[in-house]
């Protein structure tokens, strides 16, 4: 089933390095989600996994299967495109919900809605 032994050494090294980097970044993102102090800080951490965490694993997959099948295999790009198009939707929804919660409950140091009314004079 697996033809991994046909992979030349340089491609195997590159693939495993990229997979490790991607998995490591995703793991760090998960740890960051636990460690950061407030909601708005935590919202930054998972984007490690959705940007180069995913990107690096996809790149590894492209390299591995392009070398194995000796033809360009690039459908992984689609995964990257769809992830980067859909994550903002969830993140913005969460961020706006938290903003609304903090504003109505009046805690946290969220800026009031009025800062958006006029461009700052600077």
């Amino acid at each position, binding site marked *: 089933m697996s033809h991994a032994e046909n992979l030349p050494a340089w491609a195997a090294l590159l693939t495993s390095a990229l997979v490790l980097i991607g998995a490591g970044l995703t793991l760090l993102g998960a740890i960051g989600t636990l460690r950061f102090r407030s909601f708005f800080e935590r919202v930054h951490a998972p984007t490690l996994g959705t940007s180069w965490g995913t990107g690096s694993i996809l790149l590894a997959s492209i390299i591995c299967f392009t070398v194995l099948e000796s033809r360009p295999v690039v459908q992984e790009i689609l995964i990257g495109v769809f992830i980067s198009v859909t994550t903002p939707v969830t993140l913005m929804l969460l961020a706006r919900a938290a903003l609304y919660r903090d504003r109505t409950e009046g805690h946290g140091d969220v800026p009031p809605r009025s800062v958006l009314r006029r461009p*700052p004079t600077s």
Partner: protein
Amino acid sequence: MSRVLPYPLLTAALLLMWLLLTSFSVGQFLLGTVVAMGASRAMAALQPAKPRIRRWQPIPKLLGMVMLDILRSNFAVASLVIRRNRPDRVSGFVIIPIELRDRTGLAILSCIVTSTPGTAWVEYAPDSGVLLLHVLDLVDEAEWVSLIKNHYEAPLMEIFE
């Protein structure tokens, strides 16, 4: 042209996706063309606003810059996670007046900002064009404003306006 192909860009993108998911052959090309044309005709019934790309030249430069910036901030945020929380690290909100008004351009800007670890798009007011960002490692507010404006907003305005 416009009646047969109401959204040429969408049709081309769908066809490309079809070919990537199946295989590059004449048969799949023909089948994909039929599906893509049908889908874009169906899209026309929804009458979405048609994005206009006015200049193509800045796109590769913008794409390269975004990739590099995202890579750089990936490692910046990763090192913030590893080195525990520095007590002097400040996170905070940044207010940026945005001149870009094109909806597609704004959507792409939001994708860029959210995919970059360390910056999160929080709120945007379409009437005043003021954007509220949250920045994880806020050292200099003006630096973030000029980064967003010069790196992303200027090329997006060139492309769409």
